[in-house]
């Protein structure tokens, strides 16, 4: 093989490796504001003293929906699907709050009963 051919091959390989680097770089995690919103909502509900211990199942469903949104964003980069999952996370957080309100009212009924 002549030196020209060797040089040509080296350039082609360098171009290929650059393309690979660009492709792998484009697959990296990019910031998503909707996900931040969902994380904030989940954290706020999780730290709410009224919810703690009263809506564990609803809170767990909220967490798993948030995790699914994070997985879809990191693996598939599907912004529409992430937006949808963020919406579901917010609604599940609302369900956790409503469940906690129901439990608070039920506890109040239990406390009122002996007074009758």
């Amino acid at each position, binding site marked *: 093989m002549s030196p020209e051919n060797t040089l040509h091959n080296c350039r082609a390989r360098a171009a290929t490796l650059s393309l690979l680097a660009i492709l792998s770089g484009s697959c990296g995690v990019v910031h998503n504001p909707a996900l931040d919103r969902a994380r904030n909502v989940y954290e706020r509900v999780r730290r709410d003293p009224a919810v703690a211990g009263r809506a564990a199942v609803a809170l767990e469903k909220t967490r798993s929906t948030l995790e699914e949104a994070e997985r879809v964003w990191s693996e598939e980069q599907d912004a529409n699907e992430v937006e949808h999952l963020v*919406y579901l996370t917010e609604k599940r957080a609302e369900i956790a709050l409503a469940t906690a309100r129901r439990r608070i009212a039920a506890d109040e009924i239990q406390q*009122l009963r002996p007074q009758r």
Partner: protein
Amino acid sequence: MGTIFSIKAAMIGRAKTHLPFSAFNYVIFSAAFLSFGCSILPLNSERTAKPTVGAFSKAELSLRTAAEARADELAPMDLQRAKEKLEHARKAMAAGRDTEARRLAEAADVEAELAEAKAEAEIMRLAADYIRRRGDVLRQELEGDVKRGPATETSRGR
């Protein structure tokens, strides 16, 4: 004959000289495109196509459960939103927009669950209010009886 061979040899030689990518490059390119394509396309199609029917039946069940929990009376806005989303999901499904249909059905499901949770919380709150009010009335009556005491009994005796 010798001429033909020499022409062939010359063509092969030219081809070898001017070929821009070697076998190594082709392997790398193929691997890159395969890994890129495989990591995105099948996952998307898996998410969109398979769970659509399940999402519809789940949403319908959640809507019925919410209605049984008196959500039409105690959380009407949330229940209405859930119904509308399920209706839109059916239309999207009929139009062949599977991904949109699945998302709308999932949204309808969670809205219906929220309507049910709000309705149940409201029922419990109303029950607590009722018991508290009755307790207050009973307490006032008892306190009134204690204050009136024997005098009332005497008047009753007369």
